[in-house]
């Protein structure tokens, strides 16, 4: 009898790995720290994708959008740079520094540009009328490159931040991009084990838009409905990977619609209807309203995600915790990772370690942002009290 065994019995069964760290006082740390953390979770990935997002790394250009672009060939670079010349004012451009290593094979051409949109008269009118912002114009340009220029891909576009990613294990990607030379106050890292989408340079995590970045372990089975919803607002999903919808949803909900992090997370991972019957009616009504308005933004399927922007780092699980997430704090640092060991690798003795509840975000904002938000909230309360 021929059982015809196709299984590789030495194969490691795995899922992706995540790690993130923020210093809430804004003190910057080297990329080698988060690299050690993600490398501890080496076996959660399989070498088909590794990447990092770093915040606070370009203080000398912090007023400008930092575009990281990968090109398959010289032709796509030429074509893109023509478009950049037409639509942006580029103050500085350079190759992204890399080091030749054995482990990283055939990288694309990697460039970065510090720029801001060259606003057309029509766009100026829209800005003056309050219809669009400079951020929106930047999103439009990024979408244009990713959608229409063959072989060119903008992999980050935020201010004072950057994504670094590719095909390889994350510790090898870090070595390739020389991340030990960068200093940031927020870092996220991803170790990829691609399941249902291809392993290519652009498909590695993080996914970004403006200064939003997201790293993800799991699958977004609501991808279809999320994608169609985002298309109504001009976002184009071009990256062959479910995770990109989360980056665009955060941009839409938080930046454009002005939702708080807490409310946005309630839209992405709403409580079950049956849970609403158990809480007080006023809160239940608010939760029902979020669910009804943002139904197409609900993320289904198993996920643990870390998302970040210049203000902070947020961790979130799906509603039934189908992927792992652990958080810890020590002094001004907050850590989040798939496994506790990844945190202990860089923080052996945290003040507090905990496993977050499914669907309940861990929100670690910079102290100055939190203070500002608290003050704004107090003002609203004061104004409401006066009106009443």
């Amino acid at each position: 009898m021929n059982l015809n065994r196709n299984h590789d019995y030495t194969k490691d069964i795995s899922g992706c790995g995540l790690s993130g760290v923020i210093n809430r006082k804004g003190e910057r740390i080297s990329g080698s720290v988060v690299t050690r953390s993600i490398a501890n979770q080496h076996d959660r990935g399989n070498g088909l994708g590794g990447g990092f997002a770093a915040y606070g790394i370009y203080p000398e250009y912090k007023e400008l959008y930092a575009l990281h672009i990968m090109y398959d060939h010289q032709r796509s670079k030429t074509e893109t740079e023509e478009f950049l010349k037409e639509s942006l004012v580029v103050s500085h451009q350079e190759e992204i520094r890399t080091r030749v290593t054995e482990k990283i094979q055939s990288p694309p051409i990697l460039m970065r540009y510090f720029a801001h949109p060259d606003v057309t008269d029509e766009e100026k009118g829209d800005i003056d009328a309050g219809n669009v912002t400079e951020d929106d114009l930047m999103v439009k340009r990024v979408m244009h490159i990713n959608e229409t220029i063959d072989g060119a891909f903008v992999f980050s576009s935020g201010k004072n931040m950057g994504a670094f990613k590719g095909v390889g294990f994350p510790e090898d990607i870090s070595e390739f991009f020389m991340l030990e030379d960068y200093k940031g106050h927020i870092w996220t890292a991803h170790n990829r084990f691609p399941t249902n989408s291809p392993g290519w340079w652009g498909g590695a995590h993080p996914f970004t838009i403006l200064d939003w970045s997201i790293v993800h372990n799991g699958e977004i089975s609501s991808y279809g409905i999320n994608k169609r919803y985002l298309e109504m607002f001009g976002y184009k999903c071009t990256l062959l990977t479910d995770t990109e919808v989360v980056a665009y949803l955060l941009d839409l909900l938080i930046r454009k619609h002005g939702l708080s992090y807490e409310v946005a997370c309630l839209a992405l991972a709403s409580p079950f209807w049956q849970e609403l019957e158990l809480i007080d009616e006023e809160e239940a009504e608010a939760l029902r309203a979020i669910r009804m308005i943002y139904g197409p933004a609900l993320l289904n399927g198993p996920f643990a995600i870390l998302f970040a922007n210049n203000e902070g780092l947020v961790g979130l699980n799906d509603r039934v915790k189908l992927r792992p997430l652990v958080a810890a704090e020590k002094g001004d640092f907050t850590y989040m990772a798939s496994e506790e060991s990844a945190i202990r690798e860089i923080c052996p003795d945290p003040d507090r370690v905990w496993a977050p509840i499914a669907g309940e975000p861990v929100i670690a904002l910079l102290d100055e942002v939190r203070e500002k938000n608290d003050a704004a909230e107090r003002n609203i309360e004061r104004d409401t009290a006066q009106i009443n």
Partner: protein
Amino acid sequence: MNDISSRMERKNGLVRIDSKGIYYKDLNKLIREEIKGGSNLFELTNINGQRYLADGIIAEAKIDVHGTPGQDLGAFMNGPIINIHNNAQDGVGNTMSGGKIAINGMAGDVCGYGMRGGKIHIKEDCGYRVGIHMKEYLDEVPVIIVGGKAGDFFGEYMAGGRLILLGMFSKHPERPITGLFMGTGMHGGAIFVRGEVEKHRLGKELGVSDPTDQEMDELYYYLKGFAKDFGLDHKEIMAKPFKKYFPKSLRPYGNMYAY
């Protein structure tokens, strides 16, 4: 392998391994070879994230673990007694058949999945899906005791064995003693809870009763071992009444496809 055997020290029958940075495959191989060679007392120091520790080991051995062990600790094992001085991660005791794992902190998700014998003692909280698909046969009765609180799906699809949930040594006073969907699809075994679980957290297959005298004796015995492992006050643990949660039917979905 050469440089890792230099990290091993044998003293009065105890094998001590400084595990810092040792790849999990090499570490597990070393432990297996030592057991094959007759060693049965281990102390692993500086463990951080190594997976599959003691997996599939069928032997009497005592293993002390310092640090945070990786995923699937003690999977398929039958015999070893593992004492973890810190927290454990996900998948502890996956399909284990015998032996004991004592965790001096918290445990992650899917602990004791499909477990069919032996004991897991968790001093503090545990994650989601703990004790799911547990089974028993004759005198092979797996037992998981959780000193803190549990996440959703505690004892889901349970077919046998005992889950004992105390809610006493939790790091999260704000959380309920167990999450939602406790015992959903359960059709064998029993869950004992110190105190009570709100009705909406229970799978609809569950009934609730006061434990019988015989069951209280059983609890007394199990919890004595638990208290001893962590230096806790057995009397205090027993001082509050328990409830027993059990499947009302041994075939809850027997008629599902019968019409």
